[in-house]
């Protein structure tokens, strides 16, 4: 009798221990996995936040271009989302880190929202990213766009001396920029300026009249992966380095900011008039502001080229005016 009872107790105790032990172990494993995921998420979020901070001083201002390199210990992909709301819109930046080689980019951090930046980021993974900013001016400076990429690019068809300005801009990429078809490597992205051939990206010139343009590529179209991205001025660079969706959303955001800045300059002009310093640009600024506001919600083909040349003539007038609004 005694023996039987003991065996019954022993069995129950073991059963209880196994069930409770398994539950505790499972809970512990779940906790560790969850903690690991949270840590990765924190790291990715911190990285995205750091990148937005690093790019803050890239609001170049009086300097033409600013560049920097971001070196990361692990392979990372950056994702940029662009939202155009009724005001200035915003970009969100998130980072995905590959924890171990040959594994997927599993955990994405919390997207970091930035309202006053225009980010054009390649979706290709890398450990070393070059970052540079380009001022975008349509008559006056609107903002500095930030471009970030890790790929090597090869530029073909930039041999003429009149495109030296574009070449200088692309030299910002440092050793990731190769010039001339002979120097291209198998891994580099081939960008062809006006020439045909085996190209990943083609830049088609849109300016034929040398009276209006510094070179034939001052305005034009960038063709990549079946998409056509219209550009004018320095928008050439974001058009080469970003995807269509992100590009057109950020261009609309820039146009909205231009419409607001035009309104600021109109008000400034009226204050200056009261100090006997009239710029004489009120009407032109009103037209420019209205046009860019309309385009910020509905951008049609050739719109960018039209507003660019309109802005260029306003800039010429402003530079000649005694009481300039945005030049010294």
């Amino acid at each position, binding site marked *: *009798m*005694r023996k039987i*009872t*003991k065996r*019954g*107790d022993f069995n*129950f*105790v073991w059963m*209880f*221990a196994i069930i*409770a*032990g398994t539950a*505790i172990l499972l*809970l*512990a494993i779940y*906790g560790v996995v969850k*903690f690991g995921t949270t*840590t990765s998420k*924190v790291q990715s979020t*911190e990285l995205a*936040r*750091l990148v*937005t*901070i690093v790019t*803050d*001083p*890239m*609001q*170049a*201002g*009086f300097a033409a271009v600013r560049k920097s390199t971001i070196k990361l210990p692990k392979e990372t992909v950056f994702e940029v989302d662009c939202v155009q709301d009724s*005001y*200035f819109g*915003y970009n969100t930046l998130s980072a995905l880190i590959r924890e171990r080689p040959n594994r997927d980019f599993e955990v994405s951090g919390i997207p970091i929202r*930035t*309202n*006053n930046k225009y980010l054009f980021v390649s979706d290709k993974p890398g450990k070393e990213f070059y970052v540079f900013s380009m001022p975008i*001016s349509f008559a*006056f*400076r*609107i*903002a500095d766009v930030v471009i970030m990429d890790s790929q090597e690019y090869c530029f073909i068809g930039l041999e003429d001396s009149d495109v030296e300005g574009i070449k200088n801009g692309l030299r910002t990429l440092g050793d990731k920029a190769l010039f001339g078809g002979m120097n291209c490597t198998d891994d580099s992205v081939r960008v062809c300026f006006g020439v045909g051939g085996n190209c990943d990206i083609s830049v088609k010139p849109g300016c034929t009249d040398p009276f209006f343009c510094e070179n034939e590529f001052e305005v034009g179209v960038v063709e990549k992966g079946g998409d056509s991205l219209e550009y004018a001025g320095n928008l050439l660079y974001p058009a080469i380095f970003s995807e269509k969706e992100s590009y057109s959303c950020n261009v609309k955001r820039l146009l909205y900011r231009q419409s*607001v*800045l035009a309104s*600021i300059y109109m*008000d*400034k002009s009226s*204050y*200056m008039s009261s*100090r*006997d*310093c009239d710029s004489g640009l009120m009407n032109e600024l009103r037209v420019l502001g209205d046009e860019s506001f309309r385009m910020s919600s509905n951008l049609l083909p050739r719109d960018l080229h039209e507003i660019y040349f309109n802005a260029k003539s306003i800039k010429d007038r402003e530079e000649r005016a*005694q*009481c*300039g609004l*945005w*030049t*010294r």
Partner: protein
Amino acid sequence: MWFMDKIVLNKEGQFKIQQMAFMMIFVFIFFALVGLFFFQISMGNLRSSAQELHIKQTISILHSVTELPELSCSDSSSGCVDEDKLYLLSSEDYNRLYDSFWPIAYIRAYKVDSDFLTLGEIRCPALNCNYYDVYSSNQQAVQTFATYVSICKKTRKEGYVFNECEIGKLEVGTVVLDFK
């Protein structure tokens, strides 16, 4: 007395089960506490790095804010703020428009030459005003960073066009993150 034996043994079995159950609960609570301890440490690090990043961003904005076309004297100037633009951005219309644009708590520009001791702080636009409230999110707990700038406005006097400038102090504030 065989049934007495059985009762005693049953009681002993129950006691063992209770002992095991308590042990399991204590082990679980112990590991939970250890986990909580590590979680607390990592959360502490996370809080401080979040605040640090926040401050870094504010300082970097302070350096770049004078170069924004909304405030800069001209497209090719640095460290110079346009007084007309300050006046405009302080107005309610532009304040509302730029509400979500600034990633900081507030931006304020002081005219340093003003006699603050006698006059106190007078918000522009007003007679003898000495500061512009470019943006304010009405946050209470803020940490302030400042830099000196020139505040200029273009004017014409006796046929000459020139920039009339005075010394200013640009102040930006960052929200002190509250994790309670």
